[in-house]
């Protein structure tokens, strides 16, 4: 268990990167995980060059969902939207670096789901389809 809450996760949980909201986001999206009551909002600012030049996340949730959101913001800032679109579930799990059971997987991937649904208008069904092949 001390493994589960590894130093990198605790670090992002205690000192979240890009926490808060953007004053002038070009994209903003909020997702819920009704089973555990997690709420996550991601704001993006995308410039004319299609580069994500600013990002912020806000909401409530467990350490895993908060840390993964914080890690995701680090992954996408400065990237083009096309590059950001390449980020997949494996990348999040790799960044977390722990074994995650099926229940907590939803927490771990809430930030990615929020990004994908907000940034490319992916629907709930698209996201779940992805889940089937997971």
């Amino acid at each position, binding site marked *: *268990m*001390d493994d*589960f*809450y590894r130093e990198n996760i*605790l670090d992002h*949980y*205690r000192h979240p990167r890009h926490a808060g909201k953007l004053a002038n986001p070009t994209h903003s999206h909020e997702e819920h995980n009704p*089973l*555990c*009551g*997690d*709420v996550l909002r991601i704001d993006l600012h995308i410039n004319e060059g299609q580069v994500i030049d600013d990002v912020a996340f806000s909401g*409530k*949730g*467990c*350490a*895993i969902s908060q840390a993964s959101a914080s890690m995701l913001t680090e992954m996408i800032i400065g990237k083009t939207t096309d590059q950001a679109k390449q980020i997949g579930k494996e990348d999040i799990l790799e960044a977390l670096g722990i074994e995650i059971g099926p*229940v*907590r997987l939803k*927490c771990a991937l809430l930030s990615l789901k929020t990004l994908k649904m907000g940034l490319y208008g992916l629907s709930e069904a698209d996201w779940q389809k992805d889940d089937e092949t997971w």
Partner: protein
Amino acid sequence: MFNTTEIRQDFPILRQQTHGKPLTYLDSTASSQKPQCVIDAMNDFYCHYNANVHRGIYQISEQASAAYENARKKIGRFINAHSWREVIFTRNATESINLVAYSWGLTNLKAGDVIITTEMEHHANLVPWQQVAARTGAQVKYIPVNEQGQLDLAMFDQWLTPSVKLVAITHMSNVLGVIPPVEEIITKAHSIGALFLLDGAQSVPHMPVDVQALACDFLAFSSHKMLGPTGLGVLWARQDILTAMPPFMTGGDMIKQVTLSGCTWNDLPWKFEAGTPAIAEAIGLGVAVDYLSKLGMTNVRQHEIEMTGYALERLSQVEGIHIYGPFDPQLRGGAISFTLGDIHPHDVAAVLDGEGIAVRAGHHCAMPIHDKFGLPATTRASFYVYNLPEEIDRLVIGLDKTRELLGK
């Protein structure tokens, strides 16, 4: 004498370790562990007299039928039913309540009628009533509940008019632990001609429940929360009510005579048991009920009061904890829900899991009451006959560790 250390010897799973630590099982409100005698009885059925019930003209089928019906009698006596005919086997408490909602509810409710329940119900005693209300035009009213688990009975009194046809309330909340004053509520419900359904999923396992003394009309409970196997539940109801109710599901076993133009229903209780029942499970629950009766339900309740009192005292000293439900153990069962500062209940449960402690985190199938208190989730610890005070000490240490690790 109630000797927890001896009782623990009867539960093989409790000898096990999890994450290299002794298993501290504090989630009996969700499902209880099973004693060896229950496991053995089911095993014995499968090894020695496994056969379908009721129609076999050969020895092991007759043996299976007798064991199945004998289990029903034991369970009937356990809740002091007037007759074994009032004891119907279902899949779980949820199905028992659905049986009443669909069979009795759809037949007897109409637009303008009122069903009264509370804000703290398990979804099992809430969603079926919403469904039946939507189909019949009846209305569901929810008695308000505060953080200490007290019902707003003044509100209930105001709602008592002849349009109230059913009052359906839990006997012990699986979130707040509270045991509401059901005797008073039953008397009032009957005074205006309403029927009363008691959700006994938490009370039947944990305290003496006597349907004749309570004078309720329906009682629903689950085998798996009272040392018995999963896949079996019980609906008890007064015989005159059951006789007037149409079947819930139809098919084999529940009929007397079938022709291509129609059929006549079987006698009680089989009218409500369509298809092959959970035979091994019923036999298992029969043995679980023997086990609980030998311990004595008054002693079971007393042990729970002591454990709950100790837990409330110890837990209330944990920094940042907020405990829901009554503080007087006499007013409640041993399901204790709490929050720990800003730490998400999933994180609390995950850290405790690492210490070998099994607790539940979430909304415990009672979203409305969590919404009311503005909580996405709580952590819940709960106790049963096999739990020791030192397990509460371990929980407290685990919570301190959680705070050190994740407190901000």
